[in-house]
């Protein structure tokens, strides 16, 4: 924790992080839709969020320290223990299902926007509280 606002934003911030991670796995799956042998990856949201909130490989200390920046993908490390690779073989041993990915993406994006908007609302509320105090 580096700022006094963190307790109010922590949940939303981590949710945004995980949603971004999910979007990245979807991008990887879509990119490899036709790659033989590629196994679809999935990041279960709740499980990942819970593990991040428990502080397993916290994101913020990683990026708040200059030495860590750009060194490696910290997020990847965080999501390591929850990422799943889909077993089983479809055609040419590839397990990507385009329709499923599209649906997941729509859902994920919507919930990202939701978290984003709620967080924005929180900031606005605080802003109003502070500015109202000036009068």
């Amino acid at each position, binding site marked *: 924790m580096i*700022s*006094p606002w*963190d307790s109010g934003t922590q949940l939303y911030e981590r949710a945004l992080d995980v949603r971004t991670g999910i979007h990245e796995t979807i991008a990887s799956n879509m990119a490899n839709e036709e790659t033989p042998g590629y196994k679809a990856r999935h990041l279960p949201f709740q499980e990942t969020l819970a593990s991040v909130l428990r502080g397993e490989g916290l994101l913020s200390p990683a990026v708040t320290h200059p030495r860590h920046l*750009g060194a490696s993908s910290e997020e990847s490390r965080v999501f390591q223990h929850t990422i799943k690779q889909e077993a089983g073989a479809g055609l040419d041993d590839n397990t990507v299902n385009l329709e499923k990915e599209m649906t997941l993406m729509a859902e994920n994006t919507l919930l990202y926007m939701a978290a984003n908007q709620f967080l924005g*609302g*929180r900031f606005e509320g605080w802003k109003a509280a502070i*500015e109202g*105090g*000036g009068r």
Partner: protein
Amino acid sequence: MDDIGIKGIEAVPEPFGSTPVKRASKIDQGFGDMLKQAVERVNEMQHEAGRLEDAVVKGENVSIHQAVIAGEKAGLSFKLLMQVRNKMIEAYQEVIRMQV
């Protein structure tokens, strides 16, 4: 309170970090010290936000939302500090104008 859209107000944390109770028990620490600490913390947060913004601009592995959030937080803290400052100056002027 949530239903009238000003949710989160009850969640406003102690403005500048450490617990006020503990500070009150320390007699040698005055209001000036507290203010100084606050200024330092706000400064720190703005540095942090600036660093994240730099990282995004430089194309380092930082997501945009992290930088934006850090910026928002630093902005809030700064605004809060400004309000405290304004109130203090007001109070000071009131004291100055007081008839003795």
